[in-house]
């Protein structure tokens, strides 16, 4: 089955994915901070049994950290099936849908995290899916809910809706024009936060950024999403304007960069993660700008390659690799998966 990140969605030139995460806790257990190992195991076991009793989840794949090695956990995190927080937990389990667009994580910072992804920009759709899942789970376990504060969470920054909606955006033009630091600062004023997906702080090989709501209380889910969407639409417009300006003023440079990236990706025999991300970002923008003369795979999702070149995803089938072996494997993976362009 095609996984969600193997496709491009609406506004796919800029928006890679839409994601909603709902944080929920169960009344009968202490929150993660005060949950000892034994109780955590009981919480995981009991809840997993209840989830498996929901017939809508029959075709989901079950995972349990007891049966996963370190590499498998990291690889799940690299393709966003589980969160980083969950990956670092000692005990955890959950369910993942067949195309990996929905996951239910147990023993995250909150007992239950429901996560739903879709390619491109469609937050209302993902929210509906997550909310339906929430209703199913909420009728088989007792959520911690307060008439005033709403859904109770470990961290006061998630309380209320317990919802974090986030977009992954590809912003090579804004990044190239040095405008991102300003935008990152600006979005804070609207109750949003922005960070880079690969890399730290403002340096972001691959130019992929995540933007999400910070506020979770006092507004409805729809208002939070509308607020996020308004800002993201403006960022999309600015990114597109930047790209158009770039090919208008420096067409040859833009074509050169796109073809050069393609050439290196196609013929390199060793690729570091950072280099590969930078080259794939150039290639992705070039494809969407129509800089290649022949492109039969218009719908090809470059983002799936950005996941595939991550260290643990590469080692999943090849076993443990040294740094050099990893770079060689990365170049092989890229050659095998690169779309045919001329």
């Amino acid at each position, binding site marked *: 089955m095609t996984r969600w990140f193997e496709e491009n969605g609406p506004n796919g030139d800029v928006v890679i994915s839409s994601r909603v995460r709902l944080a929920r806790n169960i009344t009968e257990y202490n929150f993660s901070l005060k949950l000892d190992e034994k109780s955590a195991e009981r919480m995981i076991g009991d809840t997993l049994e209840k989830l498996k009793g929901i017939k809508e989840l029959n075709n989901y794949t079950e995972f349990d950290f007891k049966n996963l090695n370190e590499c498998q956990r990291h690889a799940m995190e690299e393709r966003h099936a589980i969160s980083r927080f969950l990956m670092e937990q000692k005990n955890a389990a959950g369910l993942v849908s067949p195309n990996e667009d929905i996951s239910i994580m147990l023993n995250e910072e909150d007992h239950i995290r429901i996560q739903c992804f879709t390619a491109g920009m469609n937050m209302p759709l993902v929210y509906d899916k997550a909310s339906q899942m929430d209703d199913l789970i*909420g009728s088989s376990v007792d959520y911690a809910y307060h008439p005033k*504060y709403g859904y109770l969470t470990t961290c006061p920054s998630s309380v209320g809706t317990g919802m974090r909606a986030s977009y992954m955006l590809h912003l090579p033009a804004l990044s190239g024009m040095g405008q991102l630091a300003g935008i990152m600062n600006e979005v804070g004023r609207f109750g949003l936060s922005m960070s880079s997906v690969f890399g730290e702080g403002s340096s972001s090989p691959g130019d992929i950024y995540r933007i999400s709501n910070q506020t979770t209380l006092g507004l409805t889910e729809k208002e939070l999403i509308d607020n996020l969407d308004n800002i993201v639409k403006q960022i999309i417009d600015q990114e597109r304007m930047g790209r158009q300006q770039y090919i208008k003023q420096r067409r040859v440079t833009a074509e050169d960069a796109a073809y050069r990236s393609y050439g290196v990706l196609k013929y390199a025999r060793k690729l570091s993660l950072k280099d590969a991300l930078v080259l794939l970002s150039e290639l992705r923008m070039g494809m969407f700008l129509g800089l290649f003369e022949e492109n039969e795979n218009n719908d090809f999702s470059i983002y799936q390659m950005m996941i595939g070149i991550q260290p643990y995803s590469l080692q999943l089938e090849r076993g443990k690799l040294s740094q050099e072996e990893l770079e060689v494997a990365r170049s092989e993976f890229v050659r095998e998966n690169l779309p045919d362009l001329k």
Partner: protein
Amino acid sequence: MLCENCNENEATIHYTEVINGVKNEHHLCSECASKLDLAYYGNMFGTELPFAKLLTGLFAAGKAAAGTEENPMAHIICPQCGMNFEEFTRVGKFGCAECYNVFGPLIDDNIRKIQGSSEHMGKKYANAKKEEVDLPDVMQKEKFSDKHEEIALLQAKLKEAVELENYEDAASLRDRIRSLKAKKE
């Protein structure tokens, strides 16, 4: 100006933070500042959730202002998970659902500062139990077996009343605290 944390040394470091349009000024001496994780402010976007840290800061500042000596807040413990006020202000996170009833009223204004509101407007939980709908009212003294707890809650209310310039309430709260303290001795 004295440092807001230790109230002893001259404040030499002044910074302003603006979150969701709410401006907060802080004044610290170099000693206290070095203990604070100010580097976090430079790395705000490296993390997905800078709020928790901020919240800890807000709580800690409130606690320091109240004076650590014989701070009645320190006696508040969540009966469900054992979280105490000191730990709560340090980690800035709740230990269980009951913590929201225990610490919630104390930090209502902090939650509002961070979230812009302290009332849930979103999706309602269909299965929510009908019981315990009433919030613990600080004015209902029979709810508190421990006098310390009641004094602490009244002091929190007093602080809020003063901040809201609601001096009439503040005066009555102050009198109640005084009479409770007198009874204690």
